[in-house]
């Protein structure tokens, strides 16, 4: 009896506490504009992204706004127009905005005008370090540390771009196209074998030192992955951009983060309205966004696979290639997902051995472009590394 009670009490507390819930949508969010980015003070370009809110039904997808006019204005009435570079992203020319002006953003879209509040630029302190550590359970954590000797920044935001070198497990020397074998050129082989995928962070990374004794952030974790991750196969770079945040923008982003991540628990606050510093001046159409003006700082971290002592990159391609013969009626269907490596030759006929088939592997095992595309090789990987590769 007691056991039964224990079991039932457990069920009571813990079983299936959650179920799907779909509220009847009585109010559509319409076409609310979202303005993302900041005014980059100092050398560099300013990048602003315009998009639209999508209603909460079906698959979430990006909903870029390509038909906007985006202009930076300063308090001396100078303006700098941004150009649409695709996907709702607008970029300025290479500017060097001074820290002695206040700036704001003007956006025209769908016959409405949106203007942000004038804001004084905030100088971002330097990054002290970007470093990695390996935990007992073989995870790599990359963390950033910074401090402001003037004790006046307190709020920080980071973005990063990661680039790594990806190499296939096999090299494809041959192609077999329309029933005709073709030996690949060495450039083609190289392009298929080595890729440099790029990724941007997909999270709001920010921290505050407001509650600490000094204005310093120590080892704020930016990313964490296992040592067998594909990114650690050869060499890995993370370019970290740090910028200060105003307390208001920090709060704005905090609410956005909280609204998205932490709802439904016992003590979670009620969701809040997002209050940015940008408003529609032509109607009371809502708009989401906070546009601040900041300088930025960068620092790069590079990890080579031999820095990780017992390197254990696991590829899904550790197996023997199979043979595909030209007279095999199944060959065309094999080649839908497989790629030839080397030719299989038959007995000599007139001093030459005819190709009677190919060794085959799944195409992703010999062509990295299928997964990672063909991004150019980054400049910062110097030639001497090249030999190491060969």
């Amino acid at each position: 009896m007691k056991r039964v009670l224990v079991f039932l009490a457990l069920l009571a507390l813990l079983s299936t506490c959650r179920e799907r819930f779909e509220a009847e949508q009585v109010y559509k969010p319409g076409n609310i504009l979202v303005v993302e980015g900041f005014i980059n003070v100092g050398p560099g370009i300013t990048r602003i992204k315009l998009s639209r809110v999508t209603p909460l039904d079906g698959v979430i997808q990006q909903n870029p706004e390509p038909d906007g006019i985006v202009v930076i204005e300063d308090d001396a009435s100078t303006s700098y127009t941004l150009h649409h570079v695709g996907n709702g992203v607008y970029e300025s020319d290479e500017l060097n905005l001074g820290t002695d002006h206040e700036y704001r953003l003007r956006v025209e879209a769908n016959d409405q005008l949106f203007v942000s509040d004038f804001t004084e630029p905030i100088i971002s302190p330097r990054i002290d370090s970007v470093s990695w550590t390996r935990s007992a359970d073989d995870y790599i954590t990359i963390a950033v540390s910074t401090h402001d000797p003037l004790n006046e920044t307190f709020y920080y935001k980071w973005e990063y771009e990661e680039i790594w070198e990806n190499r296939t497990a096999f090299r494809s020397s041959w192609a077999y196209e329309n029933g005709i074998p073709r030996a690949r050129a060495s450039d083609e082989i190289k392009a298929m074998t080595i890729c440099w995928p790029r990724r941007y962070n997909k999270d709001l990374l920010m921290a505050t030192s407001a509650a600490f004794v000094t204005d310093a952030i120590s080892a704020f974790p930016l990313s964490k992955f296992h040592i067998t991750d594909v990114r650690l196969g050869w060499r890995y770079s993370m370019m970290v951009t740090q910028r200060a945040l105003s307390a208001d923008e920090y709060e704005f982003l905090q609410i956005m983060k909280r609204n998205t991540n932490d709802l439904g628990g016992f003590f979670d606050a009620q969701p809040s309205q997002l209050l940015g510093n940008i408003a529609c001046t032509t109607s009371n159409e809502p708009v989401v966004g906070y546009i601040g003006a900041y300088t930025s700082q960068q620092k790069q971290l590079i990890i080579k696979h031999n820095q990780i002592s017992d390197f254990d990159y696991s590829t899904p391609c550790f197996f023997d290639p199979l043979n595909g013969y030209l007279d095999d009626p199944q060959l065309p269907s094999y080649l839908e997902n497989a790629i030839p490596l080397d030719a299989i030759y038959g007995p000599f006929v007139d001093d030459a051995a005819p190709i009677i088939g190919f060794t085959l592997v799944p195409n992703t095992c010999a062509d990295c472009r299928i997964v990672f595309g063909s991004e150019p090789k980054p400049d910062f990987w110097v030639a001497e590394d090249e030999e190491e590769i060969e």
Partner: protein
Amino acid sequence: MLAGCFSPIMGQQDQPMLTVNVSQASLKDLVQAIESQSKYHLYFRESDFENVLFTVSAERKPLAFILDEAFKNTSYHYAIDPEQNVFLTKDIVITTQLLSDIIDNPNAIANRQNLSNDEENTRIAALNERRVFTIGPRANGKQRATLSGTITSISTGEPIIGAAITVQNTSIGVATDESGKFSLELPVGRQLLTIRSLGMKTTQRTVVVQSDGRLNIEMLPESANLKEVVVTSDRESHVKSLQMGVEKLDIQTIKYIPSSFGEADVLKAMLTVPGVKTVGEASSGFNVRGGATDQNLILFNNSTIYNPFHFFGFFSSFNSESIKSVELFKSAIPASYGGRLSSVLKVDGRQGDMQKIKGSAGIGVLTSRLNLEGPIWKNKISFLAGARTTYSNWIFGVVPERSGFKNSKASFFDANATLTARLTDKSTIMVNGYMSNDESNLNTDTTYAYQNRNISASWTNEFSDKLFGEFIAAFDHYEYGNKSTSDPLYAYELTFGINQTNLKANFTYELGKAHTLQFGASSIYYSINRGTYNSLSSQSVILPDQVEPEHGLESAIFLEDEFQITDKFSVSGGLRYSMFNYLGAHTVNQYAPGVPRSEETIVGTADYAKNKVIHTYSGPEVRISARYAVTDNFSVKASYNTLRQYIHMLSNTVAISPTDTWKLSDPNIKPQFSQQYSLGVYGKVFKTLETSVEVYKKDIKNYLDYKSGAVLIMNHHVETEVMTTKGNAYGAEFMIKKPSGKLNGWISYTYSRILLKMDDPIAGESINRGKYYPASYDKPHDFNLTLNQKITRRLSFSLNTSYSTGRPVTIPIGVFYYGGAPKTLYSDRNGYRIPDYFRMDFSANIEGSHKLKQWIHTSWTFGLYNVTARKNPYSVYYTSEKGVINGYKLSILGTVIPYLNFNFKF
């Protein structure tokens, strides 16, 4: 069954048969009736039979039968000798026979010493019902006189609170106060008083009122152990009582209401009455007539309890073994109470038994409780102590890892003690102590903890027949906080606390024929720790911080007159004048006038010295109610109440949680104010059904709501985070109650709304564009059915069903990309509702054997909580999964929970 019927053996052959029919007759009349028909001579001492009335109805019966009938349940005895002499005695048994006869017939001796207390008490009670009490010396020319006294339990000596005394054939009625005292104005002459109280047998007293005088009345508890006494079905009812909007539940009723894990829960039981709601099972606090959870004054034996729940609201923190009754005032709040806008919940503990040591204990699935009581000095000083603890941690120990609760811990206990000293008949001192402790973590590094610590002392004294006084001193402490020590670099502790010292004096005075005056004064000194943030390790980078503590003094004087204009019409008018002083030492932020308050608009600060008055708020509070009894079974009542509240709970969550902060009114935060109009009709139909309809409308001013993203914890300028709103609450409450019978219970339905509208001109933002929006606990429809069916004396079944509209929530309505990831956009505040709430519970209660001399009495309760296993959502939340944002309902107790409880008394 009663051994008091001493029946001497007589020769059957020479027994004369008598016919006696007397009703409410004196002994002399009875004797005369007997002697006139027979040769019997009856001998008795007149003083033994003074004021006692007898009723006998016998057709051709022997004398022994007649006397058995007449003396049933009394301490009178008789003996008939062969010469037909009859000796009537009180308490003493006379033997008129030879010793041998007695030996042959041992039953002939009634040994009083063998009688149990219960039997003895029953005998005394029955006797008192037959007596005629003469009140006061004879006085000529008086038309009316005042009768006062105390009503106590005959078995424990405890005063009975709220017992109703009514006078037959009039509309005169009064209820006893907290010390069981009453005072009522009666026409002179012979009157029949009926005294009713929950859990007590209804009793009657015949009085002949000559002038002012006293009468103490002892009542017999209703108990399954004593089936000889007829239980009358006519209990204290809404129809006859003077108050309106009062809900009272005694512990017997509460114990039959099924509850989660089988804990008899005084607060959860209150949720079954109309007008009281909660946002969900796991939420501390309750909402009364559109009030917030911080607008209820919760008093446990005069102590203010700030958090009356354990483990985030699963259990109330009152040990049911120590509780006598719970009473909730929701519309006409007596002028002696104040300081909260919505309700006063009075939890009255029992007093220790003055006669003998007793105890009770209960063992349940998650908790156990123990209660001990008894005399320290018989009939003078008694004690009562109770404690309860949980062993729920084992649950978390055996759960699977993936449940996410593996490393959770929840521990709590509560303890209470009461010392009662009866100095004289008219003067009593009581000392109460209470503590509760909670500490839990829900699989996080953060441990939440809170504690109540309360002590109170009261002295009640009857200065004269007309003047009665009560003096209370109390100290209340509530502290709460959270901490985390897992990472030495960030180890912290965050604590909050409230200390309050209360002094209160209440007087009741009978003025003339029809006025009962209540007056007094009270004062509360608050000290609030609004947040202390400390590092818990030497390496910690946490910068210690403290929000400046606050001090305040809340004082009030009050006067209330209950005026019985005619037998049918009575009014009660009360005025309370409350004043709040915000005291130093404190530094107050000053803001630029007329612009939204923010850190940037602070134009200066002002420093105040210790105990210096920084700001004073004051104002009158009006409490008026009236009752008109159209007939004995139908009455109409109306009331108008205003209240002020000077202490506020700031919380961004829906329920009371250990992360809330309490804040006094200060120069920047005004007191909350409410006024409530209510009207009710009360009728009794089919003799046993009490029906009532109450409607109310309530306006709330300066109700605090929060700006978006408000930071309430460790905020040194919290006034920039809140804004005042205007509240508009209204509703209608319907109830049908069958208080007694084999099938008893009640059905209630409430329609109510609570809407808020931001009306703060300097808030800087407008919620829902300045329109009315529902508060987060607005649940328009609320239905409840609570039934108990007695099958046999030992077996009964209970059923509890409740339904309510889902509460409003703010939910996501759209998604946008920001920082490379999808983010959610939210609807208007409280623009949607979670699904409706429905739950049905069932329990079976089995009483153990009723043998009187058994030293231990046991009972079992088996129950099923949430029989239909409905997954009632407590909240909804949304998460992004594989590129789609999915909404989920989170239910806390989403399945059938069987429970078993074992209770025993000794």
